[in-house]
């Protein structure tokens, strides 16, 4: 098994300028009852996206036809709370490949990386700039380049670098899976147990 490779992406973005978006908002606990990885995208941001009667809430960004794209841009401290990987699956299953914020919760960050989704942490000023540009031009294109670790607002020509663990970067660029790597260490693990 392997994860989908990620190298470079040019896309419009979907803006969600809310802070501290916790995993219960990304996917409420009552939708965690599947025994497979598929189908969580329909319930991404469920209680914001749909009204109580199940009809779409027109005010929510995912229901606004103005916005589309494979990059989700959210306010600071995205993904806090539960360790449910369903949150990462839901974001991925809804068609996103990159999540941008000024700050990510730890477990969410490792969960997205393990699923071929790239978390891009940018300075707050840059995040504000993205929100500002998208508000005036929802069709503005962004480029995310993993090899060079840059995110660029193409029309403004502004770019910032982002950090990623070099090991995780290799995994994403090549579609490597952590488990294959761990399995290759079996002898060392057994030796460790016996020491």
């Amino acid at each position, binding site marked *: 098994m392997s994860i989908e490779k990620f190298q470079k992406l040019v896309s419009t973005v979907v803006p969600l300028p809310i802070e501290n978006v916790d995993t219960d908002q990304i996917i409420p606990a009552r939708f965690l009852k*599947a025994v497979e990885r598929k189908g969580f995208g329909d319930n991404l941001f469920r209680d914001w996206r749909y009204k109580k009667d199940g009809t779409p809430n027109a005010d929510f960004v995912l229901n606004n036809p103005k916005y589309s794209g494979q990059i989700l841009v959210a306010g*600071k401290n995205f993904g806090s709370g539960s*360790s449910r990987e369903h949150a*990462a699956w839901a974001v991925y299953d809804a068609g996103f490949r990159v999540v941008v914020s000024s700050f990510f919760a*730890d477990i969410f960050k490792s969960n997205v990386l393990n699923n071929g989704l790239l978390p891009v942490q940018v300075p707050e000023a840059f995040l504000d700039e993205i929100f500002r540009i998208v508000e005036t031009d929802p069709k503005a294109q962004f480029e995310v380049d993993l090899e060079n670790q840059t995110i660029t607002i193409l029309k403004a020509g502004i770019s910032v670098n982002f950090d990623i663990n*070099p090991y995780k970067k290799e995994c994403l660029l090549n579609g490597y899976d952590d488990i294959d790597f761990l399995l290759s260490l079996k002898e060392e693990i057994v030796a460790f147990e016996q020491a």
Partner: protein
Amino acid sequence: MILEPKTLFDKIWDAHVVKQVKDGPDVLYIDRHFIHEVTSPVAFLGLEKRGMKVFRPQNTIATPDHNVPTIDQHLPIKEELSRIQVEALKENCAKNGIELYGLAHQYHGIVHIIGPELGITQPGMTIVCGDSHTSTHGAFGTIAFGIGTSEVEMVFASQCILQPKPKKMRISVEGKLQKDVTAKDIALYVISKISTSGGTGHFIEFAGSAIRSLTMEGRMTLCNMSIECGARGGMIAPDEVTFEYIKGREFAPKGEEWNDKLALWEQLKSDDNAVFDTEYQYDASDIEPMITYGTNPGMGIGVNGNIPTGENLTGSDRITFDKSLEYMGFKPGEKIKGKKVDYVFIGSCTNGRIEDFRLFANFVKGKKKANSVTAWIVPGSKKVEQQIREEGLVEIFEAAGFALRQPGCSACLAMNDDKIPAGKYSVSTSNRNFEGRQGPGARTMLASPLMAAAAAIAGVVSDPREF
């Protein structure tokens, strides 16, 4: 040679590194892996696709807790999807030779309650579980943290996990706690100070005389909540209180082995000059009984305090604050005391242990539950339930108008039928007050069992010291 002083965290971490990956994470060996029905099925599926079995089933412990009903547990689970997950756990454990403490088992309960109460959790261990509140086990001087399902699969496959080493934080609370101030109040106080993201990237060691004075159950409550400030986990150096708690439990070391282990455990503490990346110090006497007014655990105040005005907030901070108060139906600057309470929930991996129920019982004894309040009293495990019965607490509950339910995560995350209705106010001893956490539209105020008891009796947010 003079050795560099090390923190407790470093000592345990370094002893579990199988291999360091160049420019990458460490390969960390895991001593105990707890699993439950919600975050394990996809990991088992992944393993099966690789044609593999669990590598070290004897170090894996399973129990269904997240979506089990808390009444009529002897009957088949009505809700189909929950039943399928619980059944899947049973089948997967049988296939892989994993010990399962299922619904009918005498050891059944919330995963973070049963590990410690059975003596499985021991100082110096590394412990993981596909649940963020795994941090609970840190109370014993273990490195314990929550992981995602891909990582559950890693541990199934190799008993190891790839982890970058986090930074170290020490939070010291010195002095004497006021009357009726509990470990839960310390947790809510600390999170209100450092925010829900203040601990991100860190592992916390709690220290100081106020922490030392806590019982093991109080320490578990505190470490349980360390994830709520964003930390990977929290831990407390083991001491006599720890050893006394473990001794004699089902899976605790016995005889000669006990003496050997004890000698090792006594070494588990941070060296005097060990360096932490971040340090905070608080005075225990400043801490009041706490309650939350907003939609994250950092939005907490003393019971006699006012909801902040938010005046000094700008931009997205202000938007987030306003959105939160609107959801709760509160106004900036209002008093929290006297606010109406519709539901009271006592339980969860945060406050579902016997001491929590003793505290609650002691308060409600001889009083009557407010008619307007619906209360759910949910023990954290079968053993806790049994203790409640043996100690005669059930009679106290019943006389005061409360009914005891059966163990499970229950209204903490409302995956089962225990949901707070939309718009209703709940005072809850659980760990998260996120929008919709206790049911769509539910409004949660987090507090200690004592605050929950006072709210249940008065029907409004109350100071337990005024009764």
